[in-house]
């Protein structure tokens, strides 16, 4: 009940934030632009719309998660609204989970609206509906959930600007760490390979949640990859939230 109350209030706060609408406007404009881009391209126009569309959902969803997520807890502390809130019988963990759930709900609604625009544009072009696109969108949503957890974690102890830089770094590292896999195969066994292996285990691998290429080009996705991706996102999110809760529980609100 408490988590739900805080989550709904966070959702209310987020949907009254102008930045959300600005990002939504740009996302919608990019989705419309993908159709214009397709008209100017030689080749499979549907693929262009799918490619640009899915990339827009991912990019603008990530921006929403970072820009709103990194300010969520910090704003409560900075504006001192947390004083009255935590003086009530609310656990600090419940407060954090409520904030997280509220932003996830916001992202769900926003991603849903952007997806509808995307699918309508695609349908108007191809007169076909591809269910596989929903798989890619679902995994984009899972990635946004993880990024939200990371943004909230940083928001527990640093300013929104620093938290945004940290979360963006997490996102960029997460999408480039797959290169370590190739590196592990190329370097000879020994200290270097062990180091590369440790780095790969420790660094996030957001590419395991990226099925955009497969969906756009109609390549079959192995079920094991889907299950792995799902478990990876859920476990990583739970781990980051637990870490955030640990930091938040020990904080003094001066």
């Amino acid at each position: 009940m408490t988590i739900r109350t805080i989550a709904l209030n966070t959702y209310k706060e987020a949907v009254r934030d102008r930045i959300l609408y600005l990002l939504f406007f740009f996302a919608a404009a990019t989705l419309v632009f993908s159709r214009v881009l397709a008209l100017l391209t030689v080749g499979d126009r549907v693929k262009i719309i799918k490619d640009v569309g899915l990339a827009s959902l991912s990019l603008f969803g990530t921006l929403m998660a970072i820009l709103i997520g990194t300010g969520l807890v910090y704003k409560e502390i900075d504006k001192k609204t947390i004083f009255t809130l935590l003086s009530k019988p609310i656990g600090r963990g419940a407060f954090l989970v409520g904030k997280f759930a509220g932003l996830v709900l916001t992202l769900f609604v926003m991603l849903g609206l952007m997806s509808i625009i995307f699918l309508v544009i695609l349908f108007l072009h191809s007169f076909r509906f591809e269910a596989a696109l929903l798989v890619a969108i679902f995994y984009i949503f899972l990635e946004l959930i993880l990024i939200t957890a990371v943004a909230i974690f940083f928001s527990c102890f640093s300013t929104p600007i620093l938290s945004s830089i940290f979360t963006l770094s997490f996102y960029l590292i997460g999408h480039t760490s797959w290169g370590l896999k190739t590196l592990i195969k190329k370097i000879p066994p020994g200290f270097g390979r062990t180091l590369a292996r440790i780095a790969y285990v420790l660094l996030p691998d957001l590419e395991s949640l990226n099925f955009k290429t497969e969906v756009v080009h109609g390549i079959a996705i192995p079920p094991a990859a889907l299950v792995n991706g799902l478990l990876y996102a859920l476990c990583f999110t739970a781990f980051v939230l637990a870490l955030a809760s640990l930091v938040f529980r020990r904080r003094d609100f001066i």
Partner: protein
Amino acid sequence: MANALTIENLHKSFKLGFIPKTKEILKGISLSVEEGTIFGYLGPNGAGKTTTIKTVLGLIFPDRGEIRIFGQPHLAAKARERIGFLPENPYFYDYLTAAEFLDFYGRLFRLDKEVRTERSRRLLKRVGLERAADLQLRKFSRGMLQRIGLAQALINDPAFVILDEPLGGLDPIGRKEIRDLIVQFRAEGKTVLLSSHILQDIEMICDRVAVVVDGRILNQGPLHELVSEKILFTEIALSAIDPGSVAGLGEIVSVHGERILLKVFDDAKIERVLAIVQAKKGRLHSLIPRTETLEDLFIGIVKGQ
């Protein structure tokens, strides 16, 4: 009578600055607040008043010491369910309307919808904001925010109300209204812990006070025991006589036209002043004996420290 709040030997220090330096804020605070009373917590800026309150509320963790609310550990949910809190310079979710705001806090106490609606309506009326129910808090004035803050502190019908500088930033009428509300709380059987700089208000409504200076309580007890009823001096306002004729009998505080304000420290000299006024056909406007005030006590303690 049982205690609503008991604090024993509370210590708290913070690490401050770029190169962290430990600063001890609370240096062994011990106090108790009896149920059904208004307790004034006084101290100059930076004395540790707000830190004590935040520690009681679980916003800050003490280094050592014990806090009990109605006999229970202060972090226990049962203890916190009985508390209402208004922070200093309250900041709230300004995108909510007054009614939404109270409903939100009511939900945090798991109150039923009917109870929330009824209580919100009653509390808005009680703090004089019934016409602002549908107004967003960002459009509220400072005084209105203080009032809605007080309403949220009462949404759970608490037995113990903690108010940190509730009279700050209010105009004289607003101050009187809030003061009257606090006195009503006591009549309803609630306990109030009140931290304030406005000593006059504390003196008017508090049963007991504690004076905290530099993280230590220097004096605490019932107000009538702390503030002596002995007459310190008598203020006499008179006119139509020469100031020189009464100069040796007391301290002339001011002379405005014909009007003289005289401070007389010796009771015997009052008679002589009155005799001079009568002999010289002067006029006596007022004669007010001044006893010690909380302000005198407070300034004495702080200066002594």
